[in-house]
């Protein structure tokens, strides 16, 4: 309890008749990096804005370091806020932008200089203090925005899709940079994104949201490997989801009957409540399906299906195939070594069924 930097309990946010956030509860441990992940309109930004104090929750409590802050105005919450569009003050130079928060914290002139320079060094932009924001590249502006937010030593760092406006390569660099700074400072961070790879790479904990409701909270691996719903399975990574029925329990395995794909055994632990006859949904991650030549030798750790390549999506280091397999269209994401298959090729599809996820309450 004392270790939680931010605690949200039963937060509800209504706009007129529309409910944006529905009974949302979670806690951010001190120093942790927590991501709110979901498609646009899922309530993640609304939640962040409530923590920031830019919106009032309709119900529920927000605590920062144990203090209830519902009625505390934003400027007394001691937060660092970084926006997607950086929101640097265009009429102030970089130094004054970063120094802005310190001016309101009764820090001496000499200390301000020291701390601003330290912050600019931390984001690897020393010597740029005299520049105006308009003279900086997007990535540099993002770093200045980050420096401005962390220089005040906030209790929580709130990041609202901070990487979305950057182009792809820079985005991946900034992601590593941001994580490095966060770890170095040990600053509690709430990060909002719709990008699953950002969430998986950076977070200690991911909160997957949908339509204002929390779908799943867990560590990245947990959320990825053990999605609790079809939505989570589909949102994180590319997944094939097919209808199945429990055929029989066979020792440590459960045999699932899937239309047109045949019998697929999955470990019993993946489906503890399965009983023969239960309808379930089976999640097969695209990287767990491996495309092989039809005449290639079969190994014992997979199940083999015959399939035909429908579409090839070449991605450089990897390749994604869409395959017709019975009445299903499955996708397989394979690392590329050796020749790729072409559209229309008949292949053998190896299913790593031990990694399959069973959703017992299909939605």
């Amino acid at each position, binding site marked *: 309890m004392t270790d939680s930097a931010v605690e949200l309990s039963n937060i509800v946010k209504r706009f007129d008749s529309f409910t944006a956030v529905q009974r949302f509860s979670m806690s951010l441990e001190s120093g942790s990096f927590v991501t709110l992940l979901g498609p646009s309109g899922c309530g993640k930004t609304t939640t962040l804005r409530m923590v*920031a*104090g*830019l919106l009032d929750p309709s119900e529920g409590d927000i605590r920062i370091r144990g203090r209830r802050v519902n009625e505390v*105005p*934003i*400027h007394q*919450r001691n*937060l*660092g*806020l970084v*926006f997607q*569009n950086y*929101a640097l*003050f*265009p*009429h102030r130079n970089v130094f004054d932008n970063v120094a*802005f*928060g310190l*001016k*309101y*914290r009764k820090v001496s002139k000499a200390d301000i200089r020291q701390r601003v320079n330290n912050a600019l060094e931390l984001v690897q932009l020393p010597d740029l203090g005299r520049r105006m924001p308009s003279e900086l590249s997007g990535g540099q502006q993002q770093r200045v925005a980050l420096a*401005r*937010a962390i220089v*005040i030593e906030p209790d929580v760092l*709130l990041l609202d899709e901070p990487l979305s406006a950057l182009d792809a390569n820079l985005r991946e660099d900034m992601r590593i940079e941001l994580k490095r700074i966060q770890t170095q400072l040990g600053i509690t961070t709430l990060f909002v994104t719709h990008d699953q790879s950002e969430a998986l790479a950076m977070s200690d904990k991911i909160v997957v949201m949908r339509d204002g409701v929390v779908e799943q909270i867990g560590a990245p691996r947990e959320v990825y490997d053990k999605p609790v719903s079809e939505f989570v399975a589909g949102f994180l990574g590319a997944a094939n989801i097919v209808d199945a029925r429990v055929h029989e329990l066979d020792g440590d395995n459960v045999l699932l009957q899937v239309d047109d794909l045949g019998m697929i055994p999955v470990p019993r632990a993946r489906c503890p409540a399965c009983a023969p006859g239960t309808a379930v949904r089976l999640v097969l991650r695209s990287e767990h399906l491996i495309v092989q030549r039809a005449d290639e030798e079969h190994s014992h750790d997979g199940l083999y299906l015959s399939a035909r390549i429908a579409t090839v999506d070449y991605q450089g280091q990897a390749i994604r195939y869409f395959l017709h397999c019975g009445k299903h269209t499955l996708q397989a994401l394979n690392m590329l070594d050796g020749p790729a298959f072409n559209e229309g090729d008949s292949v053998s599809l190896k299913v790593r069924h031990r990694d399959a996820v069973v959703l017992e309450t299909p939605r």
Partner: protein
Amino acid sequence: MASIEAREKRQPWILLSPALLTIVTLLLVPLLFIVVYSFWLRTASGADQIGFHLDNWQEALSDPFYRDILLSTLRIAGITTLLCAVLGYPTAYFVARSRTRHKTLLLLLLVLPFWVSYIIRTLSWINILGVSGALNAVLLGLGIVQEPLQMLYNEASVILGLVHFLLPFIVLNVYVSLIGIDRHLESAARSLGCNQRQAFLEITLPLSMPGLAAGSLLCFVLAAGTYITPLVLGGPRDAMFANLVFDAIITQLDWPLGSALSLMLLAVLAVVVAVYNRFIGMGQLARGLS
């Protein structure tokens, strides 16, 4: 046959020609006429003596009468601009921060006065402030005054009329600069420790200054050049500089003197615009008008 390059070099001039033609024939040539006129001389017979005489300029520049009226014109324009800025900024702020749904209606209300002639709008004050106007009727009816108040035909009523006329120019200019400011900037400032008032003073006000300056410039130039408002709402001692030009040209048919006087006003306002341009830049004016 002209090369492609030569054609491309000519093309901008061809496209610009209608605009250039308009500016030259409707602005520069008439202005040149005025300059030429100002050196002619009006004789006792009423005919203009063509030539290069400096008499009009001598009179316009040396007579303290003209100087005093020029100064009071600038003062009235200054007070009007200040009042418009003080009244217009909060109005623009309110419109800019209102919901989108209401914004259209509020903007329409701002533009609405332009649909009625400026002269009619000015005359309307006679029905409000006149001896038998609405305000006096109310005051008499309530027994607050026994005799109708004389509220018209003084400097205050001239300034009132000018503010009424010029307020929308400032409001629209400030509005445009306000809606151009990213709302996240204020949130960012608030998160860094500013209360609402400080965030306004640190962020919104300085960023909207160019709009306020552009509106003020328009307001000042239009106020300094007006003759209708002092004619309708001013007394005999409230003439502004443009009234002198009007009198010289329309009443006395003294085109040479009128030309010299109008060029004098033009020069003074050009200095104001030049100062503005030096510190703020004309680009902002174009933005505010678009």
